[in-house]
């Protein structure tokens, strides 16, 4: 199956298969270091796409799903966080999928995301299979970027150094990574002149979350995991961030998983919504929606939009009253 990936390699501008510099983002490399489907090789194509939107048409006969959950169960002692969770998120080359996870509090939404990220103690699962690109996860990695709810800016680093952190860990030269980081500062709507040298404590919550998003996206991860990233923001900032997210998503086309408590946010942003029920958490429904094309505020006034939101709200409320979960 991995050999299918070789097809697009031929279409990229003539460039000999140099194995070197996967960390150089300026030059897109042939798609897959395809000859070896070893675990190390799986991370290379992700970094190789860095820099420009992925234009290459990738049409393998039978694409490997980006994320597959097969009867995944996670228990902590007597407590079962999620039970028999199964879903598949297909690969849409050149587009990426925006997946929102909705559900009552304590239904194991975070468990799902942290299992994909490979973060302990949720990882590894107690039962079932979690596959990313058809392979088992061995731990956290930069191909699966994560944005947490609490802004985890490194307090000791300036905005620029925060954003360049991942590149620094890859060993990219200072000038090169700073230049890229500056590009990303403006991409997430901050000012290079005013904000680059600021420290996180000088920023507002929304700005800090922009830094966290830039720091994750600069690595051009294949999968972006967001655990209520806008939960702590005020409504205007929140809708600005949603629009920024949509824009970046279109540009980079990663697969995004977003946990949210806001049904509007889920319906606006996502083209797939996974609704969870609680105790123990399991998938109740998977919905497919139209991807968003209008600005946040406009789209959210659309009658059809409101219908969808209302439908989901009813479903979740029914769930919450029947399980008496929630807080």
């Amino acid at each position, binding site marked *: 199956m991995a050999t299918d990936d070789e097809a697009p390699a031929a279409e990229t501008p003539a460039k000999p298969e140099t194995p070197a510099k996967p960390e150089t983002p300026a030059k897109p490399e042939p798609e897959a270091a395809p000859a070896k489907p070893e675990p190390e090789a799986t991370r290379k194509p992700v970094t190789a796409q860095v820099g420009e939107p992925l234009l290459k048409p990738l049409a393998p006969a039978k694409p490997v799903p980006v994320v597959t959950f097969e009867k995944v169960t996670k228990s902590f002692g007597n407590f079962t966080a999620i039970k028999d969770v199964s879903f598949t998120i297909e690969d849409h080359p050149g587009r990426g999928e925006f997946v929102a996870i909705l559900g009552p509090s304590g239904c194991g939404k975070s468990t799902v995301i942290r299992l994909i990220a490979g*973060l302990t103690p949720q990882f590894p699962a107690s039962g079932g299979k979690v596959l990313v690109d058809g392979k088992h996860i061995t731990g956290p990695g*930069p191909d699966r970027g994560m944005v947490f709810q609490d802004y*985890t800016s490194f307090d000791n680093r300036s905005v620029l150094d925060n954003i360049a952190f991942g590149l620094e860990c890859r060993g990219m030269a200072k000038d090169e990574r700073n230049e890229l980081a500056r590009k990303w500062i403006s991409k997430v709507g901050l000012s290079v002149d005013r904000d680059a040298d600021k420290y996180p404590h000088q920023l507002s919550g929304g700005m800090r979350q922009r830094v966290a998003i830039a720091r994750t996206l600069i690595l051009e991860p294949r999968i972006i995991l967001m655990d209520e990233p806008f939960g702590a923001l005020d409504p205007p900032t929140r809708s600005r961030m949603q629009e920024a997210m949509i824009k970046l998503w279109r540009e980079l086309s990663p697969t995004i998983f977003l946990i949210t408590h806001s049904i509007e946010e889920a319906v606006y942003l996502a083209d797939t919504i996974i609704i969870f029920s609680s105790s123990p958490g399991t998938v109740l429904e998977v919905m497919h929606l139209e991807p968003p094309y209008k600005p946040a505020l406009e789209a959210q006034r659309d009658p059809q939009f409101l219908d969808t939101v209302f439908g989901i709200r009813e479903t979740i409320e029914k769930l919450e009253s029947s399980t008496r979960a929630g807080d």
Partner: protein
Amino acid sequence: MTQPAAQQKPPPWWRTLRADPPAHLRIAIGAAMVGVIVFVWWFLTRGEATEAIISPGRLPAPGGVFASTGKLVENDLETHIWATMKRILTGVSIAAVVGVTMGVLASSYRVIAAAMTPIVVFFRSIPMGALFPLVLLFAAGNAERQKTVFVVLAVIPFIFSDTFASISSVPQRYIETAQTLGASRQQIIRKVLFPIALPDIITGLRFQFGLALGYIMLVETNELQQGGLGALLWTTQRSYAVDSMERVYMLLFVITALAFALDHLIRFFQRGFFPYRSDL
């Protein structure tokens, strides 16, 4: 109960628990307290030696104490200060390099912590004075080294524990963030855990300077010819100078001022280096 809020005033600070008086008043109260102490001191020591309530052999009059500063300076006060400072700086520095390194490693790799625990518990629990004879024996023949080694031994377990605690209290979320950004374990230690904990580690070191100064006073009473403030204190008290007691009291002020200055110097640098830590 139904009174409009505008007419209500908060109770004044002197009728409110934990309410601070205004800043200028706080300083004035502090200054007044110093004045009271000096006055009581003057009152207890006034008049001729035979009339004073406390004899000048025990507590000399304040005027004489401050006047003895000149004599102290003439008698190489500066040299003694530097001798003491050099010992605690060397001792704490050596202890910091070893203690901080071990603390960082032990907090990150808990197998090291398990191995270090009994040693640290022993050295934290033993009264350092009890080790003094042994240090004298082991570093015999090199009085300077004795003193430094003693400082190192005295502070190293505390530096280790403080560093361990500082690193351990960095929230797990930072580690997770770094992991999802592709940092290796060593990179997490070097680029995340250590720099984020560093301001707290240095606060720990600051306290150790205070402790070291305390111990060095004790150790310097051995091999008096090596000098240092502890030696100077000891020799001054036993000297036959007319104002020996005055000088002893003055020395106490000098030592206190030194400890205070050292503490604030480190804090000054801390604030400069870590502007993002408003709590320092």
